[in-house]
Each structure stands twice: as structure tokens, then as C-alpha cells.
């Protein structure tokens, strides 16, 4: 199963791959996808960069339901981490702007998580129960975890799957924990730089300012957390090709520090920003399948609640601060397609239409308070990160047509009308302006697919993206990596156009995908410096931070250029190898008033790639190896120079080797193991606060009955 937008640059991670890699999280499952970099601001947070952008500019879907809401932040956010990798069958990444099909926020691409479906076994006549589960242990973060799952089938009408998982991650050990010691094993007194290894500045060789490394020079402070997941899915066969689905997916994360703020570089090392609660619950009901000539039907009503409770503890200060932000999202989507219709006498020319509409509403609750340390005295702030009672409406309708000529030439075109409306009340004490703004847009796509021979496809696509400013852009006051972000209620929407050329080869021994792209972003939102006097209403942490920023639309178009290639080779039935290489280059008008005319876009990943090999020793056992690499990234935006997540001058490159082995040891039990980062390299993905895991063992034992 893969994205149904197959004319685009699409890649997938399957359940089997996730198991064999023993992934720690849903974002972790994307590390071998072309065109994707997984940035981590904390060990319990991760954000996929797709074609050089992330956060609000990448649309996240779970089973067709938007996860993005009106509080998604500019830059990396943690929300894809709230998808339980254990409940997912496959994750697709569709690269490039794609708002016609998927709606707003699809500037850089779309990440589509597809949940595990309960099986309908035709042999079952009455009731069948199955149970399965897995336990994992990853040594770098001393993290045990487990998921249990039960599946039930009632005749051929109803199938249910339900699962629950739990994991405890302790502080993560990064690579290369060499300490500077004299021959007698005592610390070198000539330097306070007690670590020899670690991720270091490209400019002056100093240790990256974040995270704080413990005495072993490898264990990273502010990286442990706990998570609980639960899910249930019931599928009822209404007709032969029509199903009703009701599902709930819950994620509960506790006590997850934000590593770059635990401690922040601008306060004592005892200070820590912690996500005490990072919760998300998604529930939906859906009717899917075919009714008469109506194909690919999906009528879905969904409810999602995202809840964050954060606390900034500063025991050496006078006060600590707390926040609660919750957003309730109601959504409705309707999609359908026609069967292929012949529009020529002999059927040489066929046409398919797709269409749909969707609408969403976010309701926001947001509070902030300060607590006088050790006294319990609470000082309420007049507003939270957002203004309590804000709301955000968005949605649209789309139509697409596809005309195929003898299956050799396919023309595609489509358009979407989109809308968004933001409302945020006036709050006088904090000088928060009232916001009541709406936007409309039309975006379009067109594509040409040529198949000179059955296994070969050549593609040329133009697809547009649209992202209206959301409540986070317009109204938030918050700590970000580069500094404190002040709201800008005057922002205008971002619009993007992706131009891409690609080719795809599909044969049994060789699969090849190669794409080149250019994405133009008009009105791109970037962070510009602001002064302390811009901290409206005093601004809480605004003034504490080392710097202040605000989002602004740059005047001239921003560009992201790049390409990806993915190759998969099979030799017989036993050997399989895959490799990817990706590059993105981004640039925008400088947000500095007296700055250079153009500067790099923030945190665009460097040239990077992967290689994997897998050899089946027998039908039930395999061995494998994986290699990941990235070059240094020293193309920095203005905000990157302020961001302690990025070592001074840029992020160094890295090369990592993993070894894998797995076997079915009995009818009920399968083992997978990975020796990750064999050479214990110190590394981090550009823009991350957290160094990647050092050498360690990842083990998964999966059982099923």
C-alpha cells in the first residue's frame, strides 16, 4: 500500500522495516526516507523536515485525518512524535507542495501515517481472537518499552484491534564520550572543556552549547521521558466494498524536558523547561469504500484534542512558570472518485475524477502562571502562550482530473479553493490585539506522466501549496530555539509552487526514483529580530531570553532547490540493498533591516544519504547493515546564528554504521536486534538540541498467537 498520489515523489516505510530497525518513534521511522531529515529538539520530540522545511509547512495525516491544527509552530514541532509507531502499518512521505489534494500546510510535503488494520480472515465463521505484542529495549537511553495488542473478528462482518503501549526513556547517551584525562586518569587541569568528543562548533571547535553533557561526556541532560499509548479500531463491513470505521488513538507523554531549555543557555543549569504532559487523542468515525460508481469514498467525522502542560522550573530564581495549552479540533472530510471513464471510441483515452471537501475548527484554551519558588504563591498571567478562547476555521474543496492515453501518457490537473479564518480576543492587560482575519486562496496542480516502457515513468509536475497564518503565527508569545517569539497579527499567507521532474524505474531487480525540484515560496515567513521594547505587556520570558524575534513575510520569493534519488536492488530472493541521497538548498530575502540581500533559509538539511543491505540467511533469519551520513551544514539563517541548537558556525557532518540481525526463533516469537552507531560517533541532525544515540543495542522481541 502506498500513497495514492503515485505521480508524485513518494516513499514509504513499512511495518517490517520499522520492526527490523527497532524504531524508537514514528519520526525515527523516517530516517531512511529520501528527502527527509528528522530534527530533534528533545529526545521525546522530533520533527520531519521534508524538502528543507518542517513544522507548519509539512502536513501530517493519520489515516486521512489532519493532525496539523492552528497551533502548529513555525520551525520544528514535536507533534509527529505523538503518533505511536507501534500502531502504524506504514508511513508514506509525499514530497513537494500538495495543497490541492491535502489542503493547507502542504508546502514541503505530506507525511501520511497509516494505522494497523484488523484482519478479516475469510476462514473465520464465528469468532476469532488473536493476541500479539512486542517488547523493546534500547540501551543508549536504557529504555524498556512494550506494546500489547488484541484482535478480534466476528464472522465476516466485524473486526477489532486494540492496543496499549508503554515506554520509559532515560537520559540518552550520545556518541564519543571521551574525556580529557591525563595519563594517570585524572581530569586535565589546563582546560574546563572536560570532553574530548561531542558535537563541536565548526567555527571554534567548542563543544555545542546544548545539550549539557554529564560527567561521562556522553549522557545528555534533559532527555528522559515516559509515554503511554492506547488505541482501538473497529471495522464493520457494511457491504462487500463498504466499511464503517470507528477508531481512537491516544498518546500520553509525561515529563519530557525540552533539551535546549533544560537547562537554557541563558539561565542557571538548574533551570529546565519540561513538558509535564504532552497528550493527544484522536477519535473518528468513517465510511469508506465504494457505493455504486462512487469510488474511493471516505466520509469522516473526527475529533482531536491536543494538550500540553509545560513548566519552566528555575530553582535558583525567584519564580517558576507554567503553561497549559489545549486545542480541540472538530473536522469533517468527504472524498470520492469516479471509476476510469472511457472518453474515446476504443477506450484508448480514459478519465478519472477525484473530488472532496473538508472543514475544521480549532478551539483553544491557554493559560500561563508563575509560582514563587517554595512558597506556592501563584501569579496569574493575563494570557497564556495564546489568548484563551481563540479559534481557527479552515478547509476547502478540491477537484482533480486525470486523463490517460493508452496508459503511456497521463495528464493530471486539479484545483482547490481554500479558506481560513482566525479569531483571537482582545486582552488589554497584556496588550494582546484582537485578531479577526480571514483568507481565501485558489491553488492548482498540473502534471504530465510519460511511460516510454511499462517499468519506466517520467514525470513533470507543478503543484501548489497554501498556508494561511495560524493562531501560533498571529498570536503566540513563546520561547523558541533562536529566542522569544513575539506575535505578529499582520502576517499574510504563504503560497508555494513546486516544480519537479522525476523518473521512476520499477523492475524486479532494480527500483529507482530520482527527482529534482524547485519550490518557490511567496510570502515566506521567517524570523526577524525584535527589541526588548517589543515585548508587549512586559512579556514574561520575552525579556529573559537572549534574543527576541517575530515572524515576518519576506518580500521576495524564497526558493528551495534540490533533489533526491532512491535506489533499491534485489539479487535473487536473499539479498536486498537500498540507498538514498538527498540535497536541499534554500534561500530567502534577509529579514535583517540592514542585512545582506539574501540569506539561507533556516535549518535546511545538508547533503545527506543512506545505504542499507539485508541478506536472508534463511527463510526465518537475516543479517543486515545500514549506513547514514550527512555533510556539514554551515549555511545559516539569521535566526540560526542565535540558536544554541546549532553549534557556532554550523553543524558538523557525520557517518554512522548500524548492524542488524533478526530471526524467528519459534512459531510465536521473532527477535530483531540492531547494534546502532557501531563506531560510537558523536553526531546530530542539523538543528537538533540532542545528539543522536551513541553505540548501543536495540532489541525487539515480538510475539503473536
Amino acid at each position, binding site marked *: 500500500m502506498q500513497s495514492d498520489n503515485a505521480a508524485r515523489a513518494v516513499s514509504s516505510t513499512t511495518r517490517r522495516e520499522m520492526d527490523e530497525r527497532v524504531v524508537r518513534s514514528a519520526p525515527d521511522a523516517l530516517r531512511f526516507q529520501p528527502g527527509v531529515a528528522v530534527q530533534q529538539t528533545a529526545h521525546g520530540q522530533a520533527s520531519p523536515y521534508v524538502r528543507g522545511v518542517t513544522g507548519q509547512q509539512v502536513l501530517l495525516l493519520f489515516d486521512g485525518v489532519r493532525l496539523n491544527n492552528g497551533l502548529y509552530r513555525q520551525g520544528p514541532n514535536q507533534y509527529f512524535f505523538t503518533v505511536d509507531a507501534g500502531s502504524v502499518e506504514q508511513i508514506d512521505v509525499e514530497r513537494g507542495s500538495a495543497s490541492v489534494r491535502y489542503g493547507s500546510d502542504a508546502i514541503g510535503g505530506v507525511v501520511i501515517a497509516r494505522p494497523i488494520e484488523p484482519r478479516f480472515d475469510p476462514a473465520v465463521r464465528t469468532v476469532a481472537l488473536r493476541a500479539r505484542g512486542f517488547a523493546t529495549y534500547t540501551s543508549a537511553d536504557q529504555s524498556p518499552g512494550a506494546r500489547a495488542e488484541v484482535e478480534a473478528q466476528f464472522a465476516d462482518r466485524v473486526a477489532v484491534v486494540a492496543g496499549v503501549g508503554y515506554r520509559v526513556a532515560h537520559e540518552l547517551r550520545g556518541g564519543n564520550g571521551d574525556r580529557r584525562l591525563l595519563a594517570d586518569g585524572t581530569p586535565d587541569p589546563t582546560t574546563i572543556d572536560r570532553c574530548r568528543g561531542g558535537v563541536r562548533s565548526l567555527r571554534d571547535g567548542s563543544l555545542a552549547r546544548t545539550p549539557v553533557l554529564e560527567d561521562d561526556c556522553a549522557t545528555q541532560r534533559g532527555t528522559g521521558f515516559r509515554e503511554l499509548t492506547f488505541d482501538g479500531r473497529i471495522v464493520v463491513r457494511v457491504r462487500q466494498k463498504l466499511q464503517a470505521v470507528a477508531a481512537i488513538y491516544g498518546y500520553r507523554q509525561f515529563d519530557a524536558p525540552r533539551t535546549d531549555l533544560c537547562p537554557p543557555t541563558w539561565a542557571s543549569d538548574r533551570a529546565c523547561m519540561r513538558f509535564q504532559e504532552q497528550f493527544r487523542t484522536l477519535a473518528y468515525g468513517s465510511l469508506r469504500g465504494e457505493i455504486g460508481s462512487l469510488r474511493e469514498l471516505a466520509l469522516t467525522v473526527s475529533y482531536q484534542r491536543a494538550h500540553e502542560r509545560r513548566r519552566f522550573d528555575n530553582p535558583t530564581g525567584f519564580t517558576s512558570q507554567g503553561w497549559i495549552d489545549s486545542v480541540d479540533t472538530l473536522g469533517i472530510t468527504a472524498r470520492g472518485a469516479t471509476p476510469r471513464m472511457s472518453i474515446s471510441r476504443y477506450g484508448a483515452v480514459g478519465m478519472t475524477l477525484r473530488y472532496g471537501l473538508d472543514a475544521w475548527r480549532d478551539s483553544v484554551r491557554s493559560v500561563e502562571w508563575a509560582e514563587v519558588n517554595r512558597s506556592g504563591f501563584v501569579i496569574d498571567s493575563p494570557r497564556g502562550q495564546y489568548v484563551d478562547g481563540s479559534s481557527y476555521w479552515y478547509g476547502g474543496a478540491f477537484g482533480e482530473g486525470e486523463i490517460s492515453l493508452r496508459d503511456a501518457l497521463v495528464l493530471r490537473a486539479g484545483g482547490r479553493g481554500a479558506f481560513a479564518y482566525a479569531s483571537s480576543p482582545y486582552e488589554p492587560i497584556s496588550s494582546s490585539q484582537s485578531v479577526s482575519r480571514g483568507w481565501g486562496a485558489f491553488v492548482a496542480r498540473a502534471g504530465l506522466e510519460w511511460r516510454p516502457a511499462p517499468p519506466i515513468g517520467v514525470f513533470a509536475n507543478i503543484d501548489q501549496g497554501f498556508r494561511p497564518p495560524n493562531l501560533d503565527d498571529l498570536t503566540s508569545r513563546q520561547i523558541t530555539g533562536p529566542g522569544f517569539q513575539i506575535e505578529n497579527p499582520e502576517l499574510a499567507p504563504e503560497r508555494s509552487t513546486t516544480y519537479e521532474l522525476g523518473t521512476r524505474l520499477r523492475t524486479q531487480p532494480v527500483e529507482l526514483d530520482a527527482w529534482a525540484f524547485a519550490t518557490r515560496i511567496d510570502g515566506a515567513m521567517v524570523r526577524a529580530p*525584535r527589541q526588548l521594547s517589543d515585548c508587549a505587556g*512586559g512579556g514574561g520570558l520575552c525579556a529573559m531570553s537572549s534574543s527576541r524575534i517575530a515572524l515576518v513575510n519576506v518580500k521576495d520569493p524564497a526558493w528551495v532547490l534540490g533533489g533526491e534519488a532512491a535506489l533499491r536492488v534485489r539479487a535473487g530472493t536473499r539479498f536486498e540493498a537500498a540507498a538514498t541521497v538527498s540535497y536541499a538548498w534554500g534561500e530567502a530575502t534577509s529579514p535583517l533591516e540592514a542585512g545582506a540581500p539574501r540569506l539561507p533559509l533556516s535549518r535546511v538539511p545538508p547533503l545527506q544519504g543512506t545505504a542499507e543491505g539485508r541478506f536472508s540467511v534463511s527463510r526465518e533469519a537475516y543479517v543486515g547493515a545500514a549506513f547514514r551520513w550527512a555533510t556539514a551544514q554551515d549555511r545559516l539563517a539569521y535566526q540560526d546564528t542565535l540558536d544554541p541548537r546549532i553549534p557556532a558556525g554550523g553543524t558538523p557532518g557525520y557517518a554512522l554504521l548500524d548492524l542488524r540481525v533478526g530471526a524467528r526463533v519459534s512459531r510465536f516469537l521473532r527477535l530483531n536486534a540492531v547494534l546502532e552507531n557501531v563506531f560510537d560517533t558523536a553526531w546530530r541532525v542539523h538543528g537538533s538540541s540532542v545528539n543522536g544515540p551513541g553505540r548501543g543495542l536495540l532489541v525487539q522481541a515480538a510475539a503473536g498467537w
Partner: protein
Amino acid sequence: MLKRSSLSLLGISLLVAACETPRPVNDVPSADAVSDTGVDSSVQSDASDVTQPTDAAMESGADVTDAASPSDGGDVADVVSSACMPAATDFLPRTAMASWMTPWNGCMAVTNANAYPYFSGSASAPVRVARLGALDAPGGFFDPTRDPAPTEFVAAAADAGANTSAEFLFRDTGVATRYQRRADEHYAVPTGLVLNSTYQDFCGMAANAMANPDYCAGPTALNGVLNDSLAAGMAGMGSARVHAARIQATYQWWLFISSHKESLTCAPVSADCDSAAGYYTGTAGRNDATQYGLARALIALGDAGRAAHDRIWDGLLAVRCWRDMDGGRTSDGGTTVPATNEALREQARMQLDAALTRGIVMIVQARLRAFASTDGDVARAAERAAHAAWIGVVGPLLANGIERWSRGSWAARRASAPAGVVSRVVTELRAGASITTTQAGRASADLEALFPCP
């Protein structure tokens, strides 16, 4: 049975986990609870020699009057600022030939001796200090002739937007968190600490601060006093003006070492030169009617203070000129090109340091005079206690510096001081809040001998 129990437990734990924790509700703190708030004892090093508030200073001024009894006698002389001669190599922007003087003749940035040209349009230190000017305005929070109300220490919920309380201003201007990592760069740099991109994180680490209490003056000597005094003032314990005076003492010392520190870290990040100026003068120009921070305190001292103020301005512009000529002319606000001309940097910094030190010494002398002037005046006992409390914080810090500062020319200055003066003034200043009027008079005179106008 076991299976059923397990399922029940699982269900309960799911329900519990699914419940979101509400925001905390306010419990009105008891005085006992608040009295626990205060100095972080694990960071507040014993070695810092900061005098803790005496019982006398924490209570009514009458006790302090007793401690510094009229029998101590003695007058404190006004500062005499004659014979102020700049060094031959000093940058003198107020003179017509400044732009021709070697080595300053390459400086293009300073075209107006009365204005500081910012590297970065987003410099925040000047604004922080200007906002804190609400506290040290005449009749304001720091005025030793009045007792601030508890609500002036900590904003009540309804006042959160009013921006007038001490707690609010210290927290929300970001000054409080900067106390927690500020280094006094007059002391020797800890072994192995190099001026790179992690330099200023050093004292934020509790272990580093404890191991280097003099150098890490912010977390070890200032932060705890600030928190302790805010908490006591908020709870209405003891003399409010004593608490305010202690807060002011930490603030003024912090401004002094901050301006000096920023002139050093301006080498890797030129925008820090803006902070050096900002921590001295806020957003004000040399001759502006409204001044902030240390500049306000100095100008209030009359002609002598004004002269010291002008010399500090010269020093700030010297630092600005050095950086202008040493890689600072960049188009990105000066954040990327590190300075390399250490000789010129040290020359500029020494000019600024001498002037700044002279300035803080004059502020100490003024406080000693104010303390002495209340001797025997029962009506001003509370004010006297406030002055004593201020001296209790700054006196030992200055004493430590006189004894142990080692960077720049400090070792040489100590060596050339008149015999016995150093040890005597150190003893006098370490008397702290228990200082007597006689000691105050001697200390002021000794300081004048040690720190002649630059």
C-alpha cells in the same frame, strides 16, 4: 482473578493517565512559607564573603543606629576630583583631535561623542536597564527614605500588567536570569576557560559557580541576595527599605560587572559592546536629561559624578571603536566576525574598566557618606539601616576585589597602593552592614587613595 485485577488496574491507570492536570490554584502564602524562600544555599558559596543581612539590618533601623553609634564619630569627606588625567593612549572622543589619535584613527563608527552607535538594532541590555529605571527613580522602590509596600516587591495577579513591581521588573526584563550566570571578569579566568561560543555559559553551571565563587559572582553573591530580599519584602518581613537596599546593591554591582564583562565578550560577538554600554547607561545618551542605572547614580553625585560619567562614556566609545576597527563592520549586526586584535581590545577595556571602577567606587563612597550622615539621627534610623544593608552587600564584594582582582592592571595597582591602605580598606568594607561611622569615613578616604579619578 489475577487477570481481572490486572485489567482493572490497567483501566484505572489509563483513566488516570488520560486526565489532564489543571493549573494550580493560589494559596495565600503564610509568612513561614515565604521565609523559606531565598538564597540557594548550595550555590551561595561560603567563600564569597558576602555579608549576610544582620539581624539589625533585617529589623528596624533603631538597631542599626545602635550598631553604628554616634560615639564612633568621624566625618566622611566629599570626593575631590581634581587632577583627573587620562592616560596618553586613552580614546578621548570629546576632544577635537580624537579621530587623529593613534591607534584610534581608523575608527569610523564614533562620530558623535555623546551618542553610542549600536551594532545591533535589537540590543536588549539598554532597554532592560531603562525599564529598571522605574525602580531607582527618585521616590521609587530604591528610595531609602520610604518603605516599599509588599505589592511593590511582587506583583499581585491583578497587577501583572502594570510592570511596576520589583519582582516583575527583575524577572521580566531578564535581569534575574542573568544574575544566575554573570561572571566578574576582574578575577582570573578559571583555568582552561577560553573565549569561545560557550564562554558565557560557564557560571550558569552550579558546579562551576561553586568552584569559582569570586569569578562567578552572579550566582554566588548576587542571585541569592536578590531572591532572599524579594521574598522577605513580599512577605512583609522586617524593614522593606532594607530589602530594597539589598536588591539595589546587587543590581548596581551587577551592572558594574556586566558592563565590564560585555566589553570582553564583545570580542566574539560585537553586539555585546552594545550591552556594555546598555548596562551602564540604559538607552540614554551622554547628556540626556533622564539617565538610568549607574549613569543615573553617578550624575546624582554632582560635578565629580558627572566627570566620572564622562570618563565611562569615553571608555564605552573606546570599546566601540576597537570593535569597529576589529571585524565589527559587518552587515549582520556584528554577530559573525570575531575580533582578533587583543592588544587594542585590552587597551580599550582597561580605559573603560578604570573609569567604571572609579564610578562604582564613587557610588560606594556616596553610600558611606549617606550612612554617616544619619549617625545619631533617630528619625532617620530606618534610612540608616537601609544604607547599612546596601554596604553589607557591596562592601565585601568590593573588598574581595581590592584584595583579589587580578586581570588587567589590578595586580600592579594593588602593589603600588600606599602602604597599609589595602588591608585597612578591606577590613573596613568587610564590616559590611555592621560598619561604624568611623569605619565608613576611613573607608571612603582609603577608597579615594586607591581609586583616583582616571
